[in-house]
């Protein structure tokens, strides 16, 4: 099966029912591509064979016959596919600047959410795309150095631990995959991207805001300006291939920071957070 996600075509093979089930649910809006064309990534997820499968069933991710990762426990087959597809992009697309950050858009103005795991970045991203923002990506922000544009991926949003319940009650209609427990990141579930985001997955957006969010339970909702030089360092530190681009990487990040409003955002309540971002969107010229 060949799935198109943004600019990429992924050929995915898996005989594992949990994987096909999750794909059917989460990628139901994604276009299928006829086989026989050019595909960016050929991947498979399959059960490991050998002695150890009798002790503990495991699952393997293969990229075109190579195995970049250690096997994982069998129930983690689908998260492994998602992580593997992220790796495909972040490890190969050196024609782009790839950041570990979520990115959403309002009228083609992109808002980049950069934060370490556990800071509530994916939760905020999931909430906002359920309130009219367009999902570009929840894990990988792709910047084309030639144009400075953000390229969409529109793949499922990964939710962890408490966020799963939070999004379930915040957006009860958003389809979520089955929860997989005991992964390296705890419990994981994926949310289907809104159909509108998938339909517009070939429309780039212009970077307009860079926000460093942080969830703290009970914290007041505050959005405050963040020093641009620090935003630069923070973003570059979150890039997979900033240094691969050398001087061009520096210029691209510098332009990105210069042309965007940079903010620190602290929140403890998701509804308040969403209204702050709506105000931000409306304030844009």
């Amino acid at each position, binding site marked *: 099966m060949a799935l198109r996600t943004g600019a990429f075509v992924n050929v995915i093979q898996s005989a594992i029912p949990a994987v096909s089930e999750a794909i059917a649910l989460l990628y139901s809006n994604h276009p299928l591509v006829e086989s*026989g*064309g*050019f595909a960016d990534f*050929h991947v498979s997820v399959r059960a490991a064979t050998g002695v150890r499968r009798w002790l503990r069933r495991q699952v393997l991710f293969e990229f*075109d*016959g190579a195995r970049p990762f250690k096997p994982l426990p069998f129930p983690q087959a689908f998260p492994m596919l998602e992580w593997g597809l992220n790796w495909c992009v972040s490890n190969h697309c050196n*024609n*782009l600047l790839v950041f570990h950050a979520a990115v959403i858009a309002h009228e083609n103005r992109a808002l980049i959410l950069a934060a370490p795991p556990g800071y509530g970045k994916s939760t905020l991203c999931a909430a906002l795309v359920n309130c009219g923002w367009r999902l570009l990506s929840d894990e990988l922000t792709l910047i084309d150095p030639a144009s400075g544009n953000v390229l969409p991926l529109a793949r499922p949003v990964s939710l962890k631990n408490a966020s799963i319940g939070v999004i379930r009650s915040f957006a009860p209609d958003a389809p979520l995959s089955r929860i997989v427990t005991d992964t390296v990141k705890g419990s994981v579930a994926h949310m289907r991207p809104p159909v509108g985001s998938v339909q517009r997955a070939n429309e780039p957006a212009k970077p307009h805001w860079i926000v460093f969010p942080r969830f703290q339970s009970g914290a007041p909702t505050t959005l405050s300006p963040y020093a641009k030089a620090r935003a630069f360092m923070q973003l570059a530190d979150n890039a997979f291939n900033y240094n691969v681009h*050398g001087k061009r990487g520096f210029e691209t990040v510098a332009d990105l920071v210069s042309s965007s409003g940079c903010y620190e955002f602290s929140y403890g309540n998701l509804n308040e957070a969403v209204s702050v971002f709506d105000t931000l969107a409306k304030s844009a010229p």
Partner: protein
Amino acid sequence: MARRNLVLIALTQPRATASWSASDWDTLVRQARRSNLLGHLAFRLEAANMLAGAPPGALAHLDAARILAQHQQQAVEREVAEIRQSLAATGVDIILLKGAAYAIAGLRAAKGRIFSDVDILVPKQALLEVESALMQHGWISTHHDPYDQRYYRRWMHELPPMRHIIRQTVIDVHHAILPETARLKPDSAKLRTAAVPLEGKKGLFVFSPADIVLHSATHLFHDGELEHGLRDLVDLDTLLREFAQQAGFWDMLVERAAELDLRRPLYYALRYTAHILGTPVPPQILQAAEAGKPVPVIDRLMDALFVRALCPDHSSVADRFTPIARRILYVRSHWLRMPPLLLVYHLTIKAFSSRSSED
């Protein structure tokens, strides 16, 4: 699936790609990536003006590989500068080997090439001093297992690889191009004497052109790293084509092979580059190189093995004998490097350690 070696076709007859379908390009990119030749391919297709025919998806990957290759070229330059500075106080002459040598000497073989570590050669008696200086400048040994340490120090032609604490780059310090236990005994002193200083970089050297080729051939045909066999063969081809423009190169090459006890690897190198990549080796040189030819039965066996092993390590070109060919050649390379008892010892301990590290 048709087993077509598209990388080979794209490299030897780039014009043929003009009529390729998107599916051909798909296979090409996969084979080239797996062979570590995607960057090299990008430069070669560009030089042949054939990039325009690539579908946009393939072009993006070729572009990405080119950007990575440019970064690596710059990274190797930085790394060599750091190494040179770290060793300056020792006064030891440093000979750059393999990829780093191609890059710093500005050879065509460096274009689009993937680098993994920097290899240098220093006199054996300077090893300790060099190791000490590198440690003081932030390189630490990557092998902490006492067996590995002993193995390297006693039998190998190099120090255990050292990794830089900050940059995470790896340096391999050699004192010879083959282990002391190997069947072939190229004299390191002869290699050093013929080394060429790099202009404007005091203390830095590369091998002479003939020795660069012979080292590359020895590495490919007497070392275990055949998963990059095609990449190494492409290195050889590119080096031979570039050096062939220097007067007297071919005769020198045959002469040096005899002098350094490297006739066998030269025979294989010329035979397989000419056969697989169409390298224009003069007929009288091919004939002269036959001095290194093994007995006919071995010759035929090697043909069967190498022609498989020198393909991209990708399912689209492998046949059912490919894995066994690679395995046989791997064991052979160990056999060539070590006396049998030591070989068993080495493979046994390695087998144990790789099993335990899986859990």
